[in-house]
């Protein structure tokens, strides 16, 4: 029996790069599987929650899909996932992992194939301890994901805080924050500024004469962004569950075939899309989606070759995985990342204990 | 004699260094047409603006129908029964001629906070509006868009709207301007009959009209009233002839 997947992701407007990577990674895996019984319906959510909700309705009611996936942003996921699983459909998250869906709001039909939102920040906190950083200055935008980020960092970080700032969402000028960092006596900086915000921050930081070690989650040092930051990012440590130099055959083949097919290096989002598809395909191999319980068990087993190597689901269907520390390096003309250490090994998340399924 | 309907007492107004009204006293009595004439830039429109509420005098009092209206808004004064026509037509250009006339009738009744009844079916208002249009000779144009009227026709409509207000006094700033000879003549007839309904303060450069209509004439020059009197006295006044009328006229 075939399987119909609905992918709702961001394909137009400012945040389109992420959605396109997830889609391309996903479709690459589907294509490589050689199966013709997977049908994927793709729609653009324009990064608007209400549009995402409408599309989910459409996919479920009209397209009659079995599985939904694709959403990039936490606030869109919060709008779509509860209703989707309530209607008895599976949802596989290739990117967003809001805490509300990992703890009390978890659901047996909701699987997160990327990370719980706090994970990368937690690993960064752990790394800071191991790198002997004792006085961090931390900043993030003033919205739920930003607050989660700093909470995640502080959960593992043991040193003092030289300062803690919430910036405006979408802010582009960071002179003021940098001045505060300079004046604070910090010995390091941790920041979570996704997308264009991170690019602006790093460029301005590099030009400010302040010279402290910087740590961030992979989102600001991802393959799609690094070229735009340029040399300003060199040497920065960042945490990620994936890197193109993770040493396993699946990953090597993925990086090579992705680059060959799309003419660019894959990003972590692409790897997440790729893994999501492979998880799905592995489940199809051992169960029929019509038999929900069997299919769910097959998903839970996570019996697929992940680009990240070891991959398993915790009791709340969120990943248990290694989180690496990477460093931004230059390879020829290209800026990219190299693994320097493992930040947290077999790491789950802080909310699993609240989850009662 | 009864109190004047409008009594302007010692009004002064300056724009920077230019004093456009200097301590002006002027009144308008029941049943009369009082013409205000004077050279361009003498301060006639400025005075009307102060009376109607567009400008606030620097000092002086404006008493209308027994109320000191000097500090009131334009709308409030209009509700007291002060109707004006503008020197440059000021109409709702997208409306039909009839709708513009309805505005006056409606404003007069003060029934604006009615949200559900179709105004165009309020027959008392409508007949008031139609009557006024007939008086100025616009009956045939009732359903023409105001923006499609010629300049002179707009002037006529301007007067019609003032008529629908059935006010206690009219202030008319150059109502004849832009009207053709026949238009002027019929307007003279209208105004002539109107003075019994409400007195008119008439600003006009058309001397034929002023001489035909005015009971009294005041002459304003450089912000000061230099003479007030009957048509006959004013025509004979040599200062007025020099400052305003010129040689050939009169």
């Amino acid at each position, binding site marked *: 029996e075939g399987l119909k997947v609905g992918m709702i992701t961001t394909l137009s407007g400012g945040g389109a790069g992420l959605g396109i990577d997830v889609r391309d990674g996903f479709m690459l895996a589907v294509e490589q599987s050689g199966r013709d019984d997977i049908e994927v319906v793709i729609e653009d959510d324009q990064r608007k929650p209400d549009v995402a909700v409408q599309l989910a309705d459409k996919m479920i009611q009209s397209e009659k899909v079995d599985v939904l996936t694709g959403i990039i942003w936490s606030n869109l996921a919060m709008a779509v996932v509860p209703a989707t699983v309530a209607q008895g459909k599976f949802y596989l998250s290739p990117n967003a992992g809001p805490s509300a869906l990992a703890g009390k709001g978890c659901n047996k039909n909701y699987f997160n194939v990327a990370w719980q939102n706090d994970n990368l920040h937690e690993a960064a906190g752990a790394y800071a301890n191991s790198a002997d950083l004792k006085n961090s200055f931390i900043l993030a935008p003033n919205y739920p994901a930003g607050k989660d980020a700093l909470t995640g960092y502080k959960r593992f970080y043991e040193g003092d805080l030289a300062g*803690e700032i919430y910036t405006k969402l979408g802010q582009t000028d960071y002179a003021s924050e940098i001045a505060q960092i300079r004046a604070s006596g910090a010995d390091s900086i941790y920041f979570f500024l996704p997308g264009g915000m991170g690019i602006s921050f790093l460029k301005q930081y590099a030009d400010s004469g302040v010279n402290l070690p910087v740590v961030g989650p992979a989102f600001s040092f991802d393959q799609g962004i690094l070229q*735009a930051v340029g040399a300003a990012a060199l040497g920065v440590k960042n945490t990620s569950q994936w890197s193109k130099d993770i040493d396993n055959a699946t990953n090597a083949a993925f990086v090579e075939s992705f680059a060959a097919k799309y003419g660019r290096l894959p990003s972590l989002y692409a790897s997440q899309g790729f893994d999501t598809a492979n998880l799905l395909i592995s489940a199809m191999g051992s169960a029929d989606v019509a038999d929900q319980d069997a299919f769910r068990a097959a998903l839970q087993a996570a019996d697929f070759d992940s680009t990240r190597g070891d991959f398993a689901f915790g009791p709340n269907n969120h990943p248990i995985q290694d989180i690496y520390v990477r460093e931004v390096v230059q390879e020829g003309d290209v800026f990219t990342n190299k693994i320097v250490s493992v930040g947290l090994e077999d790491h789950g998340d802080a909310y699993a204990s609240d989850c009662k399924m | 004699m009864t109190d004047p309907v409008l009594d302007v007492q010692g009004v002064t107004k300056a724009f920077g260094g230019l004093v456009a009204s200097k301590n002006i006293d002027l009144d308008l009595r029941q049943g009369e047409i009082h013409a205000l004439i004077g050279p361009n830039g003498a301060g006639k429109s400025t005075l009307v603006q102060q009376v109607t509420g567009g400008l606030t005098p620097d000092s002086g009092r404006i008493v209308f129908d027994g109320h000191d209206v000097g500090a009131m808004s334009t709308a409030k004064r209009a509700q007291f029964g002060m109707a004006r026509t503008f020197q440059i037509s000021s109409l709702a250009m997208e409306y039909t001629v009839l709708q513009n006339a309805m505005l006056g009738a409606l404003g007069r009744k003060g029934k604006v906070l009615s949200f559900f009844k179709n105004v165009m079916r309020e027959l008392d208002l409508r007949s008031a509006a139609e009557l006024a249009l007939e008086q100025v000779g616009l009956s045939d144009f009732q359903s023409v868009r105001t923006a499609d009227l010629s300049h002179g026709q707009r002037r006529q409509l301007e007067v019609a709207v003032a008529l629908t207000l059935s006010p206690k006094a009219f202030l008319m700033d150059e109502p004849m301007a832009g009207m053709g000879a026949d238009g002027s003549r019929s307007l003279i007839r209208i105004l002539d009959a109107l003075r019994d309904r409400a007195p008119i303060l008439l600003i006009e450069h058309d001397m034929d009209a002023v001489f035909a209509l005015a009971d009294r004439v005041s002459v304003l020059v450089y912000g000061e009233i230099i003479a007030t009197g009957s048509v006959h006295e004013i025509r004979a006044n040599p200062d007025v002839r020099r400052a305003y009328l010129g040689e050939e006229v009169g």
Partner: protein
Amino acid sequence: MSWILLVEQTLNGLQFGVMLFLMAAGLTLIFGVMGLINLAHGSLYMVGAFAAAAVAGATGSFGLALAASLTAAALAGVVIETTVIRRLYDRDHLDQVLATFALILIFSEGTRWLFGSFPLFLDRPEFLAGTVSLPFGIEYSKYRLSLIGVGLAVAAGLFWMIAKTRIGIQIRAGENDREMIGALGVDISKLYTLVFALGAALAGLAGALIGAIQSVQVGMGEPVLILAFVVIVIGGIGSIQGALVGAILVGVTDTLGSFLLPKVFSLFLAPAAATSVGSSLASMAIYILMAGVLLVRPKGLFGGA
């Protein structure tokens, strides 16, 4: 908190303001002089930044990149003026809003089509890298300092052009009565094309200059556009001085607001709550400023009587 830091933050606010002015200048010119609400001004800013990034990428020269940003934005300006905008002058603001909103869609997705969905790289020139030392031990970015210079020069030039030159007078006359200035023998449509191109070029220049220290990506123009509107409304539409003063007010309010408000709240709130409330209020600060200014002066600071 030291006084030095406060001085430095004020300087940062000033500099942010001047940056906003670069963007707002073209907007106020088009808006005030031609009476046109151009939502697509942010798109021209983006065009400038992308052109600069593309040329800098190919040639490595920042000078050429700036030239490219000016040319590309001016050209885009001429094209949209002659095909779309000129049909909108005698329409009401609403039609202009809709049409230029449509232009944003076309420009944004068109750019993504051409350049892909990922941000581009654009860096300041090497000789402006690093910092200079100012009095009181303030280290200040050379590049930002030169931005202040460029912004002030643009302000002076524009002010002179609009207030004093014959062309400036004719443009303002056209704003009052376009048909009439034509009937007096002035080819107002050519003039407007020129002004529009000039405004566009300024936006493009701003995009390139600012893009060098921010991210060059699709949609980059929209947040700045809103800020630029705030600026010109505070200053009074059409007034170049107003735009400058408004920009600096917005810059300083924004910078000092996000810096000081959390500190103020921490005097009587728990630290976590203070940062949160303080930063929330800081994001609203410029809008509160704008509403405040308009309530006291409904036509902005320099907006006539």
